């Protein structure tokens, strides 16, 4: 394609722009993983407030038919965590009992490959939803909470549990009540394995999860707890673990305290029934009810409301969000008993957010997804390996953060020199061809070849008005459509939202 043609079309406004309020475009960009045709249509139909309310409900998760079919076929959906935990443990036991030799090695390798495949499928499922679901705010919040309650695929048997963790512990509560998220993650075997609470028992204290539950999940490091509170909470959490195939034999007086739900188990024989104080309060309940009481205490702290509100504001608004906004969000958090949608409503209707339009540097997830959403809109990507590869190359693979603090939400974490050049390489991969996205995973010929055309109605409506003179100048110098794609995807404007 000749450069002249490109320059020509780049200056032609498209009709879609007429129905959209240009001033709302940066706001739509933050509510979504990148505006696509579906977002524009929904916004035009519902108006600004209607669109926001629909996103806060997050109930319209209607996927394109091909995507829905694809998701339904993923084998990972067939097994719940309880069956997975026991199945994997049984298989590991069987393999360990095999005599040393090639058979044992082959069995190990096969199980290992299954685990890697399970982790990939979990990532693929998250990505399919994040790219194609109309409930874009919910999808961002699923990512946000998976990052907040981060688990690492390479620990213990976590790989097998990632799909269930997202499906059961995170997704149902992504826009719900914060306390439910804490309890759901506390009871999930992925978290119990990852932060070692499955091993925490009376006389064999492991304080790893107790500490992170306060520091990273609820209060924040300055949230007003002490080392003594960590030790007390670790005692509270004794006995919270993963169900064995058969319930334990318990003394009669303990049987009433036993709890079992799926892969989760509260084993009173492993619990410390001694008196405890947490944050200056004497806990009054016993057994698992005491865990619930402790979580209540944590999530009702002002420190928790502030900590969660600030983190949301950092993600959606900017690195150093205005204190007044965070305080209003924390107020909403407390008044609504930790209703996440209500807190987000405060955020997305704030002047402070509007004032930061276009200034938040996209993290790798936001960058890669916005690029493929612009390039392919609702067209089903056949092969997710390029996407997971780009996320890994940019340092933000899903379920790949080794430490429980999750990925940084700060701009500077993603804009260092090494990352900028890598981002440009990915911009090139996406701009210059189909990048393997349409090579079916089951083999066979690519279903789409060639490079994408980024000069879509979405481009003219959302991106084109925001471009600087320098970026326009670069685009005009493009010697081919592919190079034009590269410059657009590498531009400062496309790298921010």
């Amino acid at each position, binding site marked *: 394609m000749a450069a002249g043609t490109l320059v020509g079309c780049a200056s032609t406004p498209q009709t879609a722009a007429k129905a959209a309020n240009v001033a709302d475009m940066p706001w739509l960009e933050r509510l979504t993983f990148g505006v696509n045709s579906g977002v524009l249509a929904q916004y035009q139909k519902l108006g600004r407030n209607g669109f926001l309310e629909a996103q806060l409900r997050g109930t319209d998760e209607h996927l394109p038919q091909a995507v829905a079919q694809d998701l339904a076929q993923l084998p990972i959906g067939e097994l719940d965590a309880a069956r997975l935990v026991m199945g994997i443990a049984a298989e590991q036991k069987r393999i360990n009992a095999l005599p040393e030799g090639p058979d044992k090695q082959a069995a190990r390798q096969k199980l290992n490959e299954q685990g890697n495949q399970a982790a990939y499928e979990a990532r693929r499922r998250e990505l399919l939803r994040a790219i194609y679901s109309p409930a874009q705010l919910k999808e961002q919040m699923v990512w946000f909470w998976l990052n907040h309650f981060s688990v690492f695929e390479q620990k213990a048997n976590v790989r097998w549990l990632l799909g269930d963790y997202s499906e059961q512990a995170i997704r149902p509560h992504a826009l719900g009540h914060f306390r439910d998220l804490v309890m759901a993650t506390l009871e999930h075997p992925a978290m119990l394995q990852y932060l070692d609470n499955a091993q925490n028992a009376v006389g064999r204290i492991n304080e790893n999860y107790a500490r992170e539950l306060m520091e990273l999940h609820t209060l924040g*490091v300055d949230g007003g707890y002490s080392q003594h509170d960590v030790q007390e909470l670790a005692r509270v959490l004794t006995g919270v673990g993963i169900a064995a195939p058969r319930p334990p034999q318990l003394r009669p007086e303990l049987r009433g305290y036993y709890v079992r739900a799926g892969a989760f188990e509260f084993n009173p024989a492993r619990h410390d029934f001694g008196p405890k104080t947490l944050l200056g309060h004497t806990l009054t309940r016993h057994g698992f009810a005491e865990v619930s009481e402790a979580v209540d205490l944590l999530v009702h702290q002002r420190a928790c409301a502030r900590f969660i509100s600030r983190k949301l504001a950092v993600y959606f608004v900017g690195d150093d969000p205005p204190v007044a906004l965070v305080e209003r969000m924390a107020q909403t958090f407390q008044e609504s008993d930790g209703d996440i949608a209500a807190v987000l409503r405060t955020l997305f209707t704030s002047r402070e957010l509007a004032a930061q339009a276009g200034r938040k540097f996209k993290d790798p997830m936001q960058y890669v997804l916005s690029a493929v959403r612009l390039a392919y809109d609702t067209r089903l990507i056949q092969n997710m390996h390029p996407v997971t590869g780009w996320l890994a190359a940019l340092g933000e693979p899903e379920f790949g953060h080794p430490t429980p603090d999750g990925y940084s939400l700060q701009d500077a974490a993603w804009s260092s020199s*090494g990352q900028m*050049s890598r981002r440009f390489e990915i911009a090139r991969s996406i701009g210059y061809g189909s990048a393997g996205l349409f090579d079916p995973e089951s083999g066979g010929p690519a279903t789409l070849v060639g490079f994408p055309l980024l000069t879509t109605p979405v481009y003219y409506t959302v991106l084109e008005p925001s471009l600087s003179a320098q*970026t326009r100048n670069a685009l005009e110098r493009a010697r081919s459509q592919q190079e034009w794609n590269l410059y657009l995807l590498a*531009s*400062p404007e496309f790298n921010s939202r």
Partner: protein
Amino acid sequence: MNRRHFLRTGLAAAPAFTVAGRLFAAPAGTPRFLCVFLRGGYDCANFLVPWSSSFYYEKRPRIAIAKPDPALTDGALALDSDWALAPAVRDSLGPLYQQRQAVFIPFAGTDDLTRSHFETQDSIELGQPAQTTRDFRSGFLARLAGTLNGATPIAFTDTLPLAFKGDSGIASISLQRGGKSPFDDTQTGTLRGMYTGNHLESAVREGLELQQEVAQAMQEEMQAANRGAISTKGFELTAERMARFMRTQYRLGFVDVGGWDTHVNEGGAQGALATNLNSLGKGLATFAAALGDEWNNTVVFVLSEFGRTFRENGNAGTDHGHGSVYWVLGGRVNGGRIAGEQVRVSHDTLFQDRDYPVLNNYRGVLAGIFGTLWALGPQQLDVIFPGARPLDLKLV
């Protein structure tokens, strides 16, 4: 000859050469400094084993490392009558220690008592006095780089570490991957042009340049491999590439290594911690060898946010503790010894009845090293570590 003479030739006095806005290496013989951060709080008591302490063996029934046995060539290596080096690093760090190129500083650490990984890592990297409001835009290595004209700093990490946060952009690039640059000169120029005047301008420029350098390094590695060199992986590979960068252009480096948070099944002479230590030790020995003569002008400082509980926990692991053991390596460091203030390892010397105490504050230790290494005065050191008292441990 004064064995430390070379190190006193301060970079502060050396001219910086700049060509097209880019700093080039200071003359040969000026010091290099590499900071290796072990993220996760490594269990120092199973690295530098207090083998004369019966308390150690009493409190670590499942994970203690056996006392050095002169008859064994693969057991712990006795360094003196109190301390021994873990078997996992015997073949990598042992020779360095014996050649007086390694010093260990037990009971080292911070004032931070949160026992939080992230909080303590941040506080170390910022290097600011405890109990002051933190400025998250100013890390101690960035302040050091600002003090040393022409230090050409670089972080061998995916993201710029807090230690290097400052006013001027500092290059960062992970050496775990790399490849040929896909951009021709026109494209490189256009990409840079889009960021002229943008706050990411220098990151973009550095990124595109570094990308080419890594690509070149990889090409040379491939040629070496074709000639039969052993190919390395993991931290060893990173270390080999770091040496390449630091031998020529960069004088101030940072790298981090993860995987030290051993709450469960830590292992003893073998196991999870040993495997990680083994890889780290091999990597650093590789780094030393790959620097060639310039190893004599290099100091490597290894630290971690905290030590771990002295007693093993209920899961044959250890929980977050306090005092740690730092390492100082280099061709001409004042090595072959255990440095800093020490106490006997016993029940009554434990901090809060659970951890090693901190007797050697990281700010004082590092200020002491920097002062000697670059002949920095008290005022300059006070910029790098405000309010710290440099400790003269005669390390370099």
